[in-house]
């Protein structure tokens, strides 16, 4: 058996790649293929689809409404939800970057035992369920919550501020949920910087902010890009946070898709929406890849 393997390197390779290829094939390609099929089938109003009833109706529905006389009218409702998701994800990424970068920088500047403790602390939120953590934000942001309670108690405001069920609440919740994905990659790239370069910049008359902008930021770029991608992409498809903190007013793509599969019983449309999301993410990543390649060639 072993001797046979040794004589056939191709067989050897197949055996080594085989298990992971099977896992990816089974758990990724098959469901994805299934979803493609579902998105192209006719809708069964009791859930599921009418197999064999081929139609592209689900994709048309994304942008158009069918009038009674079968003409198409532009319907921006779903596009609006997509755009809102895009902007919310973008602002979440910016917020996470603004808060995450200083944290990562601070961690990098600490001495060894303390530094490891800080890395550990950053990952602590992962120890509890996402749902539980988002409920905590509900408790903080609601009208009778901690923030409004404190402000009312202090007499700063007369009526509770509308914090919960707003895009603001969703952005805060998302930034909080995905913060470790921003901090850790940035930390990893900051940690690799030779801090003698910082001294060199000071020596060459760069003040603290100029030093940060001209030396630390460019060298931390790979971490910033990785962190932003890791926050932006899952934000686009977020479900739990917008459901709890955004309510029905601040719906995101994830909630829309989930709704099509449950209450609306429109599986093909849900599947089609998921593919629009996938296309959006792939497009964003492609643009990013092209940009970094252009930069690598330029510099």
């Amino acid at each position, binding site marked *: 058996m072993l001797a046979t393997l040794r004589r056939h390197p191709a067989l050897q390779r197949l055996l080594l790649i085989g298990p992971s290829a099977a896992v990816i094939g089974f758990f990724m390609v098959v469901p994805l293929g299934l979803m493609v099929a579902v998105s192209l089938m006719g809708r069964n109003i009791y859930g599921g689809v009418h197999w064999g009833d081929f139609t592209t109706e689900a994709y048309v529905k994304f942008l158009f409404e069918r009038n009674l006389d079968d003409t198409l009218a532009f319907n921006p409702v779903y596009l609006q939800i997509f755009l809102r998701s895009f902007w919310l994800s973008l602002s979440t990424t910016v917020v996470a970057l603004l808060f995450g970068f200083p944290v990562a920088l601070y961690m990098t500047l600490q001495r060894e035992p303390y530094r490891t403790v800080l890395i550990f602390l950053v990952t602590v939120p992962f120890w509890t369920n996402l749902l539980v953590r988002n409920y905590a934000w509900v408790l903080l942001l609601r009208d009778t919550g901690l923030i409004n309670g404190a402000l009312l108690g202090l007499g700063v405001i007369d009526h509770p501020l509308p914090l919960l069920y707003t895009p603001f609440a969703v952005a805060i919740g998302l930034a909080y949920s995905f913060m470790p994905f921003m901090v850790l990659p940035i930390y990893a790239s900051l940690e690799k910087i*030779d801090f*003698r*370069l910082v*001294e*060199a*910049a*000071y*020596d*060459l*008359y*760069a*003040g603290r902010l*100029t030093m940060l902008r*001209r*030396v630390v930021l*460019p*060298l931390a770029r790979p971490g910033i890009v990785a962190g932003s991608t890791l926050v932006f992409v899952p934000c686009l498809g977020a479900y739990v946070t917008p459901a709890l903190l955004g309510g029905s007013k601040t719906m995101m793509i994830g909630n829309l898709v989930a709704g099509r599969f449950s209450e609306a019983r429109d599986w093909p449309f849900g599947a089609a929406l998921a593919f629009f999301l996938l296309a959006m993410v792939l497009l964003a990543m492609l643009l990013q890849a092209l940009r970094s390649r252009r930069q690598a060639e330029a*510099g």
Partner: protein
Amino acid sequence: MAVSAVEAQGVTKVFGSGAGEVRALDEVDVAIRQNEFFTLLGPSGCGKTTLLRLIAGFEQPTSGEILLEGQPIAGTPPFRRPVNTVFQSYALFPHMSVAQNVGFGMEMLGKDRRTIAETVERTLDLVKLGGLAGRKPAQLSGGQQQRVALARALANRPKVLLLDEPLSALDLKLRKEMQIELKRLQGETGITFVFVTHDQEEALTMSDRIAVMSAGRILQVGSPTEIYEKPTRRFVADFIGETNFLAAEVVAGEAGSLRVRLPGGRELSVLDAFEHKPGQTVTLAVRPERAELAEGGAEAQLAGRVENLVYFGTDTTYHVGLEAGGGFVVRLQNREGARRRHEVGASVGIRLPAEAVQVLRD
């Protein structure tokens, strides 16, 4: 008298506290003159790099004061000091081209583009790197990176250029080249160089003056000749070149001149700069090449037997076991061809010319 380029007055630097306290510099006083090539020489951990970092502003002295052209600079951050550093690791910005690296300081000072471009070009020519302006540091050899680091610091025309063991990462041949190059650049630019090294040969060949440091103190400051020929302390004599040490007893002395009794009982008159008194024991330092060998004879001050000899081509080193105990090394030039003057086992006398003997302070 002209004002010193850099002056340290009673500078002490303590790192850590309590039991982990390290006294890197201990009451250091030194004045570095304008336009000189000044070297801080000492073994690792002697405080030389700390002193350099205090001048650059990366560290603040625990006590004492540092003056730059007569002005105290305590509290002035490094980016406001008219000094530049060539780092041991070069610390070139990896994401910038050679030209951007060299122009960085001038850009920070707000010089206009044309001035920067011209100065960058001129400075790169000065360090013989013309034509490499567009490269990234990673595309350069170690020697070239070294030159970029040098150009980056020189381009700003600092009042003082600080060099932290800049040649230690280069191989021997390149190091020799750069030693000459640095000396040339210092002469051409007229900038005060403060050079840190643990390499005594580097210090001797390049410096106008050397400060020998040990354990956070400056032991002696002087020209290379003074440091080599007239060391005042055992550490200095030992650290630079080879030295024989002899313990001798002062039998008589007055006004800079001593009569000392050597091991073995012979007496010798020597010059003394430190007012030793009769009855004291002094340490004498004698360079191997300054002593002479005699076939026994009355004028010899020490007697012994050749235990070993090493032929070096240009000279031969004789290891002599002294009758009074201890060893003594004599190096003779091989002027008369390959003929050995003394064989292993031969009884010899060692003559010490009075001017070859240096009485040490401690």
